[in-house]
């Protein structure tokens, strides 16, 4: 299975995402924002970072990149797409997932190992979880406050499009504690925290068992491999 990771100018976590794909047992494929070519990949990851320095709005300029035309087309055909942090902001700007992001309510950049609840374990990227699971993965953002109008919030809550919710602490003022959402079909998922940073013992969040041993992020990648296996 070949999973593409798009590099935009200012992407930071593209190599980490490629590494996570490799650890999960799939083949990472580096994709370039300026190309109109998905190189035949089976799934796509938009990584974290600060594309175009977050100028205009986080993810806004990246959402108009050449490769986004192909990604929007592929998403419409059911290809799994995961947006992490800046990738989530880019998906929202491209209208592939509902909502938008503003500056964190407290105005601060925040980095912490964050507990999340999996609210929907039926999406292309979450089927290795059980709905209601609590997981811990790192988060780090300045413009992570998820917002949507009241009607949209009601709709996505009702339709199961809220995929992850912050637990214990709402780190950025996101409405309804929303950390991640999906499109209606469930093949496109975006979240602010970073699963790719919790995929290898020794480099993840602390757990009750040992320091830096958290690998909850691995199941995102296991999920998409199950999804792709089911399609193939």
């Amino acid at each position, binding site marked *: 299975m070949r999973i593409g990771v798009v590099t935009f100018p200012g992407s930071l976590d593209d190599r980490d995402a490629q590494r996570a794909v490799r650890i999960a047992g799939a083949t990472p494929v580096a994709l370039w924002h300026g190309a109109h070519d998905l190189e035949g990949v089976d799934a796509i990851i938009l990584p974290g970072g600060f594309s175009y320095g977050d100028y*205009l*709005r986080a993810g*806004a300029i990246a959402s*108009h990149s050449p490769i986004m035309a192909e990604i929007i087309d592929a998403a419409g055909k059911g290809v799994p797409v995961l947006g992490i942090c800046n990738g989530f902001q880019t998906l*929202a*700007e491209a209208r592939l997932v509902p*909502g*938008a992001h*503003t*500056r*964190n*309510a*407290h*105005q601060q950049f925040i980095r912490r190992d964050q507990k999340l609840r999996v609210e929907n374990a039926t999406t292309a990227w979450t089927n290795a979880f059980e709905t209601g699971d609590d997981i811990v993965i790192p988060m780090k953002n300045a413009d992570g*406050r998820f*917002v*949507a*109008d009241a009607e*949209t919030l009601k709709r996505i809550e009702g339709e199961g499009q809220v995929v992850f919710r912050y637990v214990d602490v709402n780190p950025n*003022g996101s409405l309804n504690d929303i950390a991640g959402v999906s499109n209606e079909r469930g093949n496109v998922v975006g979240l602010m925290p970073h699963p790719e940073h919790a995929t290898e013992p020794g480099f993840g969040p602390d757990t009750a068992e040992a320091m830096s041993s958290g690998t909850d992020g691995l199941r995102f990648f296991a999920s998409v491999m199950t999804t792709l296996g089911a399609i193939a």
Partner: protein
Amino acid sequence: MPTIVVEVMPKAELLDPQGKAVAGALTRLGKTEFSGVRIGKRFEVTVDRPVDDALLEEVRELAVDMFSNSVIEDVVSVTVA
């Protein structure tokens, strides 16, 4: 060189953390008569030819599709400077 000015503001019902921070600073300076501050964006788009209705319409579309995000912002004006 003609300039088209686009002004974008965060939606009134949304928290504007920047504006709130500035409003807090005003209070600390003793400027208690100001009850709030909201901060928006001003775009100055220059063109090398006279502005006609078609061009203005194109900028209006850009203002909605790119300069602003309708989930969080409103385009409040598109004018020729």
